[in-house]
């Protein structure tokens, strides 16, 4: 789960890390009022869960309240990479002298949190990593021991000898680690972390991604979820215990197991089609789950055929068949459905589906090819 910049900053401020003063606005008038309250120049920043909002025009400087109102009006409602901007953060503009990148990620390979620090701040760190990796210092932290002051110093000294920067950055890195561990983050970053001309340091931007597996014990973070930023179909699927991701193709896929679901999608593409979605109905599925899954898929007008690919292990094929029959009864399904149900209780499932309009298939390859034919051939 992603949280907004302004929310991540709240967590920083709770731990004593200085960030430019600011507030969130949902209207241009609110933005104007906040700018008035702050005084001086402000920055109006789109709060959306995508990177590169600066390049997309989602971040603007305003000299005062009137301009803040104007800029906010332009940014609110803007579409950035498919997401509509519903909120802007209006913050004091700070007089930047130096910009740094500091971040902490969960590193899969070394199985520990890993700090990333660079003097090349304010730009895309992945690009810096790809083009000039020598400008980046990485330091893994053994979570059994936690981060030690010497590690914070080493990271800070690697980019600056300025005592103000070393002190401010050490504190910021310490807060990053604290937020990371206490919030079950998978990524937390400040880009840029800046030194202003008066020798102070500020966390000007903030990014925080949370491990979905840990949300059950992070009520404060879970409450930060911005439903406007989430796909409603994905949310509905999650509620029902399904895992769903919308794609752009014509073949609706309904599979048990994430790996098999991906392999099914890939096979659709291999035979010249395009999957309309990733959908994993999970283990020990009950008929209701299948009905919900069908509903979500049928909402997509691009879908031309539906493909069931079930390998029964714990999932029983007869349960899926029951759900399938129930769904075709309840919902007005006009699309062709190919059903490949194999494994546990497959004979029973076959009997149940006999006489229905469903197109049976034995292998994955056969099932995908039939679905593509029924959808009108390869796209």
């Amino acid at each position, binding site marked *: 789960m992603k949280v907004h910049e302004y929310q991540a900053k709240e967590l920083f401020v709770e731990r004593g890390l200085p960030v430019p003063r600011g507030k969130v606005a949902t209207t241009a008038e609110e933005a104007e009022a906040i700018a008035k309250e702050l005084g001086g120049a402000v920055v109006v920043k789109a709060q959306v869960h995508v990177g590169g909002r600066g390049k997309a025009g989602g971040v603007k400087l305003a000299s005062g309240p009137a301009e803040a109102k104007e800029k906010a009006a332009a940014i609110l409602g803007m579409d950035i990479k498919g997401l509509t901007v519903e909120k802007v953060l209006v913050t004091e503009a700070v007089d930047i002298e130096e910009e740094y990148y500091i971040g902490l990620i969960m590193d*899969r390979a070394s*199985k520990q949190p890993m700090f990333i620090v660079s003097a090349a701040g304010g730009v895309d760190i992945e690009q810096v990593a790809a083009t000039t990796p020598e400008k980046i210092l990485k330091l893994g932290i053994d979570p059994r021991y936690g981060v030690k002051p010497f590690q914070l110093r080493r990271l800070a000294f690697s980019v600056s000898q300025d005592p103000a920067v070393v002190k401010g950055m050490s504190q910021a890195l310490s807060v990053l680690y604290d937020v990371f561990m206490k919030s079950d983050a998978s990524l937390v970053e400040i880009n840029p972390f800046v030194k202003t001309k008066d020798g102070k340091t500020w966390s000007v931007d903030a990014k925080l991604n949370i491990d979905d597996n840990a949300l059950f014990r992070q009520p404060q973070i879970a409450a930060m979820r911005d439903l406007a930023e989430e796909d409603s179909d994905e949310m509905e699927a999650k509620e029902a215990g399904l895992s769903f991701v919308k794609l752009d193709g014509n073949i609706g896929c309904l599979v048990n197991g994430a790996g098999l679901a991906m392999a099914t999608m*890939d096979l659709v593409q291999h035979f010249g089609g395009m999957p309309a979605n990733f959908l994993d109905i999970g283990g020990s599925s009950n008929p209701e789950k299948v009905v919900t899954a069908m509903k979500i898929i049928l909402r997509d007008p691009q879908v031309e055929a539906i493909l069931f690919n079930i*390998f*029964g*292990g*714990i999932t029983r094929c007869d349960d899926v068949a029951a759900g399938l029959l129930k769904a075709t009864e309840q919902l007005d399904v006009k699309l062709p459905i190919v059903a490949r149900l194999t494994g546990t209780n497959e004979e029973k499932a076959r009997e149940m589906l006999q006489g229905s309009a469903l197109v049976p298939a034995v292998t994955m390859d056969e099932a995908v090819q039939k679905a593509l034919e029924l959808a009108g051939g390869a796209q």
Partner: protein
Amino acid sequence: MSIFVDNNTKLVVQGITGRDGAFHAASMKDYGTHLVAGVTPGKGGQEAGGVPVFNTVAEAVQETGANTSCIFVPPAFATDAIFEAVDAGIDLVVCITEGVPVNDMMVVFRYVKERGARLIGPNCPGLISPGQAKVGILPGQICREGHVGVVSRSGTLTYEVVDQLTRNGLGQSTCIGIGGDPIIGTNFIDCLEAFEADPATEAVLLIGEIGGDAEEHAAAYIRDQMSIPVVSFIAGRTAPPGKRMGHAGAIVSGGKGTVESKEEAFREAGVAVAVKPSDLVPLLAEKYDPAREALCSA
């Protein structure tokens, strides 16, 4: 022969009185696994599925000599269950539970390693050595004794592949699902190393997916260290970047963890890469002739 589980496996099921724990304990026992105990705190002294239930794993180990544990407890309690099993001296811990917080796993991983135990999972289907023992939730009926090792980050995709092997007369030494989370206890390389050392394993099927770089590391390992043939398939070519595909670990981010990168690594390492699952068995047949192997090892 086989890897990790066999006839010497003495199994304790943590969470045996829960719905999933009870169901799969019975299934494992039916398969022939030596199920010796269950653990559910507060239900010590009861019986479940024909075995005694203990309050703690330590007691279960002391009373029954269990050496392997299979965990079916909710995600909030799974890391504690792993700690408990390892602390009690269990050698092999198989954690089926999905949804374990990743930051907990960073710490658990170090504990398991420090204590010299082995963890498989979490978020995995477990493993099966056909004809000997099954620890986890894989459907035993699709397996058959033989000489192909199967290792996979997936569950049902593994079944699909194992089923194809069996239908084509290719039995398995051990089939193991290592789990779909970003941090897991046993990685591809651990399994490859074990398969290479196992006299009964003559070829390996490796099923990877997008996310992380475990496949890339495995490729280097195969190139440098393995003599038996390995055939691979990687799922997730059509997954959009930045989106998790069901598994917490199945995500392409920052241009890393793509199918292309993994396939390239395998190809460079001389590992055959199947374009689709149904190509795996034919590809394997090119590299491995069970009849010839049988002759050689006779």
